[in-house]
């Protein structure tokens, strides 16, 4: 276990604190909003649009809720539905040929507002991974804090991936977080991806930042005392 996981880890569902048990707990229990992520094999949905902003992912008029649930119904609302509420058959999420837990999006995904509702909407819809050649900072952080893995690949690989899925919608992708690879099943198409080592540990074990920060209270108070002198 990396050095930064010394101290207390907290399991929300169990409501217990126990440093030695945390690994075991994380193996068997789904934590409140941070599900563990190791490997995912799934079909994918291609969204070949660049600069998808968070207003498209979840329009502001749906941000009035005070809990985290149900945002998936309005994911890409104004692309999925026509103004009269009817389904827009041209939008990829309404295309019966495509399904799966992986969204393969265009460059600069998630730009715009800091609304975490965007990450909630994507996970609530059922996605576990978003693939793009570039992610906006805040969205990337929000995704990681919600167990949604942003996989950043090269533009060339993204383009190959898009073509592959469009020509064969049944294509399965394999996202292996441990080895940091994304590949197309039964094809010679694979790429490594980067992820912050700390965030990787969090994703694999279902840990989150609050757990860690709470274990550092003494240091934080010492910092405050030093700053006020």
């Amino acid at each position: 276990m990396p050095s930064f996981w010394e101290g207390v880890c907290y399991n929300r569902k169990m409501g217990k604190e126990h440093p030695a048990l945390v690994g075991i707990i994380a193996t068997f229990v789904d934590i409140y909003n941070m599900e563990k992520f190791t490997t995912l094999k799934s079909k994918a949905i291609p969204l070949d649009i660049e600069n998808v902003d968070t207003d498209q992912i979840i329009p502001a008029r749906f941000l009035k809720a005070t809990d985290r649930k149900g945002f998936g119904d309005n994911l890409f609302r104004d692309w999925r539905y026509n103004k009269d509420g009817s389904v827009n058959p041209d939008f990829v999420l309404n295309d019966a040929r495509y399904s799966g837990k992986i969204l393969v999006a265009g460059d600069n995904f998630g730009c715009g507002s800091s609304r975490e509702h965007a990450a909630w909407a994507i996970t609530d819809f059922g996605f576990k991974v978003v693939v793009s050649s570039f992610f906006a900072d805040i969205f990337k952080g929000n995704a990681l804090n919600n167990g949604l893995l942003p996989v950043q690949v090269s533009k060339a690989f993204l383009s190959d991936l898009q073509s592959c899925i469009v020509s064969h919608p049944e294509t399965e992708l394999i996202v292996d977080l441990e080895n940091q690879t994304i590949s197309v099943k039964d094809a010679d198409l694979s790429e490594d991806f980067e992820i912050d080592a700390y965030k990787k540990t969090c994703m694999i074990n279902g840990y989150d930042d609050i757990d860690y920060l709470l274990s550092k209270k003494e240091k934080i108070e010492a910092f405050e005392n030093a700053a006020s002198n």
Partner: protein
Amino acid sequence: MGKTLFDKVWDAHVVDTIENGPQILYIDKHLIHEVTSPQAFNELEERGISVFRPNQIVATADHNTPTLNQNQPVKDALSRQQLEQLSKNCKKNDITLYELGHKYNGIVHVMAPELGVTQPGLTMVCGDSHTSTHGAFGAIAFGIGTSQVAQVFASQCLLLTKPKSLRVSVNGKLKKGVLPKDVILYIISKLGTNSGTGYFCEYAGNVFEEMSMEGRMTVCNMSIEMGARGGMIAPDETTFNYVEGREFAPKGKDFDAKVAYWKTLPTDDDAVFDKEYTFDAEDIEPMVTYGTNPGMGIKISETIPKDDNPSFKKSLAYMDFEAGESLINKPINYVFIGSCTNSRIEDFRVAAEFIKGKQKAKNVTAWLVPGSKQVEAQIVDEGLKTIFDAAGFELRQPGCSACLAMNDDKIPQNEYCVSTSNRNFEGRQGQGSRTILASPLVAAATAVEGKIVDITKHLN
């Protein structure tokens, strides 16, 4: 090697560094509003954690508030519940809240600087991407997600990897009619919407040095539109003069001591940035956007460029514009002057100066939405309201309003709106609405003429 302004403020707030991992950064001020905080309060409650430093949090209601009849109960049930939830959460956790109608209420990025909450050298966060605004004071200020709002509630800290450094310098003399909004729209049009991703940006050069604090806030506000988490401008006499005497600013000897510290913050001469860009002030003209991201901007006198990229074409199709087209003489039915980018007193002074003695065009609905109760009061005190009323403009009550159209201030489908806000995304100002970003001056001129005009030809 010397340090940048960003390095100095960042390094002074590092509580701990995790080996091969992020740093724990201490947050001095946490601003919250009704939309991105409720889930964070819920999370704390579910975990049985209390708010660690409630006196370092300031709350306001802004995103989801009506801009008419604020003295009456909010009509929309969901909006009302969200506002009530904020009041309840603040009361329960002993957090200062300037709720709807309070004399200090306003858009979070307008009211906090106005009250002196924003100061040089601080670390500030808010669940809103335009928190970058506060960097105008030489503070590290950035937007965070709701999970991070909960982290700051719980520990007054965040786990962060230090971003890279970027400097954008603009030197020279700005042309007449070129406002701070044009400067930042120009920069974003040149650098694109993701050039700043992974970076914190410092704006340097005489153009920013000569800007008012309001202008600096407009610039830093839109840092996120080029992907940068935050933007900063070195604090100087303009900054100190602005902060001095404000409600929560340090007083007397404390203020003098702070100023002495703030004077040490500007970037050292030998500091090195990871990336640098330089522009000439003379090259900048009044700007307008023609597409669906803030990087799609042109000088008002230019034509829309050609590009075969499918996303670019999709964007033009949404706007119903064509490559090669000029926006001059485009009929416009909606004008919005407001938002955390341009709703400060200076913005309304610029608009009023142009509007004075003229009439709003009949086809135009023009909403003027001040950033705060204090700005609203100033508009009245300075006689600007009289000018707006006489010209047929509607002065509304403070809030985020038509910038994101969470409330009833929505631009109808297929209508263009010349807007002083920060985002021209599809449907941002209402389903199917088409946003053209511009300065308050261009917006005011559009409202008077009923169409986009080359503002430079209307100035003496």
